């Protein structure tokens, strides 16, 4: 297959037409949630030029086959896909619905999760990780989450804030709290 190369520092001009910070719309079934995060490099400095791509199931745990359409087209179809840039402080925020549990291999069940690709200058190929939700009972038996070393597993968990349906999920690219990334 063709080799990966970095998105470089200027990807925004080509990719921002698919920026979507809110996947919800009136009538969408499920619990609306907000996830906020910050991406930090090996010096714990914020990464202002990163982009996330998210992919998730709907509230019933099904992946959509609805097509992503241009901004302003009929928004009342859940696609499960979003592209989010980080801001000057390396932060990003998006609104979506809590995904349902998804079927895993061999009859197993995956806990609610969001797949994340991370792109930036300095990454010759994207990083792949997943957002799980702290406190979710199904996490204990999730076939992917439990592949991560126990002492690093918390890096995959979004933590619920005291107010509302809001979660915090940070990414550390390096260091003792380095986020678990998957070889995909």
């Amino acid at each position: 297959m063709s080799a990966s190369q970095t998105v470089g520092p200027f990807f925004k001009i080509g990719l921002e037409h698919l920026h979507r910070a809110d996947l919800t719309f009136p009538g969408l079934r499920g619990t609306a949630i907000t996830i906020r995060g910050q991406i930090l490099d090996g010096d714990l400095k914020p990464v202002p030029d990163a982009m996330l791509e998210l992919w998730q199931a709907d509230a019933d745990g099904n992946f959509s086959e609805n097509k992503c359409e241009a901004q302003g087209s009929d928004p009342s179809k859940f696609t499960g896909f979003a592209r989010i840039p980080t801001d000057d402080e390396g932060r990003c925020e998006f609104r979506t619905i809590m995904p349902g549990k998804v079927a895993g291999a061999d009859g197993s069940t995956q806990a609610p999760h969001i797949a994340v690709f991370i792109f930036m200058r300095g990454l010759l190929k994207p990083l792949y990780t997943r957002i799980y939700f702290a406190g979710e009972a199904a996490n204990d038996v999730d076939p992917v989450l439990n592949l991560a070393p126990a002492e690093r597993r918390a890096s995959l968990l979004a933590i619920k804030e005291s107010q509302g349906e809001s979660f915090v999920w940070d990414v550390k690219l390096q260091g003792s709290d380095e986020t678990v990334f998957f070889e995909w």
Partner: protein
Amino acid sequence: MNDPRPYRKFAAGTQPEYSHPSYVSTIKRAPTKPLVLLPHTKTETMGPVFGHSLVTARDSDLTAQHEGEPLGERIIVSGRVLDEDGRPVREALVEVWQANAAGRYLHKADQHGAPLDPNFSGCGRVITDADGRYRFVTIKPGAYPWGNHHNGWRPQHIHFSLLGAGLLSRLVTQMYFPGDPLLEFDPIFNSIADEKARGRLVSRFDWETTQPNHALGYRFDIVLRGREQTPVER
């Protein structure tokens, strides 16, 4: 994209490693702990799909997005998007972005002293047809300096992003031009260990798509990650 089969492993040397210190930005951004091997579940074997409302005719002709014509050498870049078994990837979203003929991006962070071109934005997108074909009209991007190392210059290139054949076929790459003397000095291009794999990122000049008195043609085929032969999950 509903194909339940897992993806194949990457062939050795055909993809860059995260850590590549001669590309200095990798030093503080590449992961340092072992990656966890991912089983390909439904989350990964499916993926987003894209509708035609995302692309207009203007999006595939980067020379026709403004009142006047951009400066530079007009070129036609075309090719096919295939999987590793040689099958066309239909309905893939192909997005491109590039510098103008002077080597300057229309981006606030680009500090290169070369001029902007009021008639060139440098971005485009298309959706592949039933044969996996795509085609862009654009201008040849200029080389430009970067601060990675002393007297560093990026070879002329066009950034490509591909989506639509399942999540883990996601690819972002760069298309280079044949005979560019800067290729051998470029740490990003040379992050790919396998010489043939590097070569596949260099487009070739193409008489067939060259148009008399109008534009030179360059051909760039892109191969996306293929699938295993048998499903592991139902």
